[in-house]
């Protein structure tokens, strides 16, 4: 279906339009990246409504602070992904989120807490699940924490009771593994 076809523009074009505040570009940007960013957000925040709120906040922030993006310092997507991750983590630690936890019905609570404590995979991306499962368990554990759960590497080290250096190395090895798979 042509209506569902994603619009793609090259990064320099996107950045140029974004920084000139061309309203049309936001639509394009949304169509290109909303699902990738939502993938990141929804793994940090499994509560659908809150995750969608964060997605909205993410695009508002992208739109409003477009002038702060410096393309010499990294790719546009990295910048956007970090906005999404930071907002997700903020939300995760905010009163809002804790209240929403409290507001859950008792019956729902068990599964809700479970949801918060495990990494769930979108069945649409089964191939990726397999790919991540192909990672060695210790690499996967670190990547889960920092990528999906919004932990800093310092927090991950505490959680896994590992030296900081080891955590850093494992993150690197995990990403190298991903690079190998994608290239």
């Amino acid at each position, binding site marked *: 279906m042509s*209506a569902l076809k994603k*619009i793609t523009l090259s990064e320099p074009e996107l950045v140029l339009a974004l920084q000139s505040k061309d309203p049309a*570009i936001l639509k394009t940007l949304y169509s290109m990246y909303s699902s990738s960013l939502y993938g990141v957000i929804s793994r940090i925040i499994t509560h659908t409504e809150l995750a969608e709120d964060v997605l909205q906040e993410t695009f508002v922030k992208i739109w409003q602070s477009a002038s702060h993006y410096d393309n010499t310092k990294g790719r546009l997507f990295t910048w956007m992904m970090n906005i999404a991750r930071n907002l997700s983590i903020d939300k995760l630690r905010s009163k809002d989120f804790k209240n929403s936890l409290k507001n859950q019905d008792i019956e729902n609570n068990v599964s809700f807490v479970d949801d918060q404590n495990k990494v769930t995979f*979108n069945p649409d991306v089964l191939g990726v699940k397999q790919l991540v499962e192909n990672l060695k368990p210790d690499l996967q554990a670190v990547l889960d924490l920092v990528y999906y759960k919004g932990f800093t590497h310092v927090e991950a080290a505490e959680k896994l009771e590992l030296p900081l250096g080891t955590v850093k190395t494992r993150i690197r090895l995990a990403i190298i593994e991903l690079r190998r798979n994608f290239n």
Partner: protein
Amino acid sequence: MSVENLKAYIESGVLELYVLGDLSPEETVQVEEMASRHPEVRDEIAAIEQAMEQYAMQNAVEPSADVETKLFELLGLNEEKESQNIASTSLDSNTTEQTKVVQLDTNYTKVRTLRYALVACVALLIVSLASLFITYNKLNDAHNQIASLNLDKQKFAGVVSKLEFDNQGLSNMAEMTDSKEWATIRLEGQKFSPSSKMKVYWNKQNKNVLINYVAMDLPKTDAEHEYQLWALVNGKPVSLGVFGGDEKAKEALVKMQAIEQAQAFAVTVEPRGGSVNPTMDKLTVMGGV
């Protein structure tokens, strides 16, 4: 920085943390400085970024459509303005432009369709309520009509039974007047009730005596009294039985006791059940044979 040191720096994992946004501002500045000085660092960062971007793309989850709607509402970017801007944008090719417009239209149409559906539903509801109200009123009217028709029917039934009663009496009277078997005795009003009159029918052969309510005009008696029919046989009154007022009769024609011979018939008002001897001051009607 020596090649070994640079390699160690790259392998320390700091660049991954940089891409993940997990460094302090000072460390971030350091990495950026390194990147600007060493192409190897820059390339490594680009490779990590690309891997993470790929990873995110593959893990994409489609958000619900109303996030987009809400977002554009929130930013006050109205859709019409956008499509104009799209048209004036030199960035995208024709196909992109077309795709874009189609996408907007789908959303637009969906919302508009829903809006129409809502309006249609409300209209339907109003029409339904109105027709329900009209139907209810009509039903009430119908109920009233049925009730009044029932009343009429009862009235007619009453009239019909009265007519049947009269008809029965009249036809009997006619038959008996015609036949030679029956003698008709006219009883005229007496001092007690001058305007009263009635007829008594006496069969010459079997001596049966009949009275006919239709051929009778007597004043109504009260609850404790009724009429008694007498035959005068050789100057002596003989009771032929009692009969009540007009309204108590089921048949127009009532058979009284037979009498072998009589010179006259008379009716008196007597206490309920009748008397042995007639109360002469309440002699209502009398007539000779």
